[in-house]
C-alpha cells in the first residue's frame, strides 16, 4: 500500500528523469508496540525496515501523533549492564533490511496521548535523510511469549 503510494508519487519524477526505479524504496513491515502496564509513560516499538530500491537509504527520525515525543534508540548490553543509546540515524543498504527488535534497536515512544491497549493501532511516520517521509501503522500487542524468536545472541 505504502509502496504503491511512493511509486505513484514518484512516478512523475521517474518519467521526467527517464530512469527506471532509481533511488531507495523504503517499506516498513511487522511494526508493533509492546503493550505496557497502565503506569508506563514510555513504550517501545519494533519493526523491520526494508529497502527495495537500488540505492542506500537512511532513516533519520520517527514521529507519531499518538505520542508527545518519539526517538530511535538502541539497547546495548556491555559487561552485563544494559545501556540505552540514542540513535541518530539508521542506514538501510540497497536491497537490505534492518530489524528493530527487543534488546536491540527500538523506537522510544514517550507519553502516549491515550491509553493504548492490545489490538489498538497507532500511526507513525519515519523520516529519511532526503526529508521524504513514510507513514505506517503499528499494532499494540504483547510480546511473543518469551521473545525466544527475537532474542538473538549478539
Amino acid at each position, binding site marked *: 500500500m505504502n509502496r504503491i503510494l511512493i511509486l505513484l508519487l514518484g512516478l512523475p519524477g521517474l518519467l521526467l528523469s527517464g530512469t527506471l526505479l532509481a533511488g531507495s524504496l523504503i517499506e516498513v513491515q511487522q511494526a508493533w508496540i*509492546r503493550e*505496557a*502496564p*497502565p*503506569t*508506563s*509513560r*514510555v*513504550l*517501545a516499538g519494533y519493526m523491520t525496515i526494508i529497502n527495495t530500491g537500488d540505492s542506500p537509504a537512511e532513516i533519520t527520525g520517527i514521529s507519531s501523533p499518538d505520542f508527545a*515525543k518519539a526517538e530511535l*534508540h538502541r*539497547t546495548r*548490553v556491555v559487561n*552485563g*549492564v*544494559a*545501556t*540505552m543509546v*540514542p540513535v541518530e540515524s539508521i542506514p538501510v543498504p540497497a536491497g537490505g533490511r534492518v530489524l528493530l527488535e*527487543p*534488546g536491540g534497536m*527500538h523506537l*522510544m*515512544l514517550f507519553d502516549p496521548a491515550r491509553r493504548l491497549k492490545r489490538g489498538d493501532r497507532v500511526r507513525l511516520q519515519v523520516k529519511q535523510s532526503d526529508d521524504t517521509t513514510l507513514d505506517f501503522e503499528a499494532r499494540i500487542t*504483547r*510480546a511473543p*511469549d*518469551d*521473545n*525466544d524468536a527475537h*532474542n*538473538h*545472541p*549478539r
Partner: protein
Amino acid sequence: MTKPGTITLARRLLPFIVATVVAVAAGLWVSDRYFNRQADLADLHGTRFSEPRALQPFTLTDYKGRPFGTEQLKGKWSFVFFGYTNCPDVCPTTMSVLKSVASRLDNKVPGVQYVFVSVDPERDTPEQLGQFVTWFNGDFIGVTGTGQELEKLTRQLGVIYMRVPDEKSPGSYTIDHSASVLLFDPDARFHAIFSAPLKAADLAEDLTRLANAYR
C-alpha cells in the same frame, strides 16, 4: 559331594556376603545418582556458583508496604531482576520472559517466586511498582528501598545501576542497570546467574534441574 564343613562355613559367611553385596549395590546406586546429578548440572544455560553465597542483611519494602529481606527469600527459589518501571525495552522484555518462566514451571517446581527490584525509588512509588509487576503476573513481587538499603543488596551481588541524565529533556533520566536475572536458593543464597539475552525455556529448564539436585 560337598563336605559338611564347607556348608557350615558358607552358612556362616552368608550374612557377610549378603551385607557386602547390598553395601556395594547401595554405594553404586548413590554414587550413580550423585554423579548423574553433577553431570546434569554441568551444562546449565546459566552460571551456577560452586559455592552459593550467603547474603548479608538488607531491608527493602514490597509494594504492599511489607519488609523484604533475606527472611523473605528463605524457603523458596527466587528469580530476582533489577530495573525500573519507566524502562521501555529491557525491563518489560525481561518481565515477559519471567512471566513465561512462571507459566512453564507452573507448579512443577514448588515454591518459586519472582522479584522485581526497582533501582528507581524516587519515581517508582509503591503504587507504580505494584501496577507494573502485577500487570505481568499477579503473584510477582515488586520491592524497592532507600538508596542505602538498595546498595547493601546490590554491592554484595555485583549488580550495577546508575542514572543517566537525558540531555534532550532536562530533569528526566534513564538508568543503566545490570540486565542479568539472579537466582537465589531456598537458603537465601546467591546460587546462579543468567545473562541477557534471556530465554524462558532455558531458565525454566535450569531451575528444574537445580531444584532436583538441591540436597
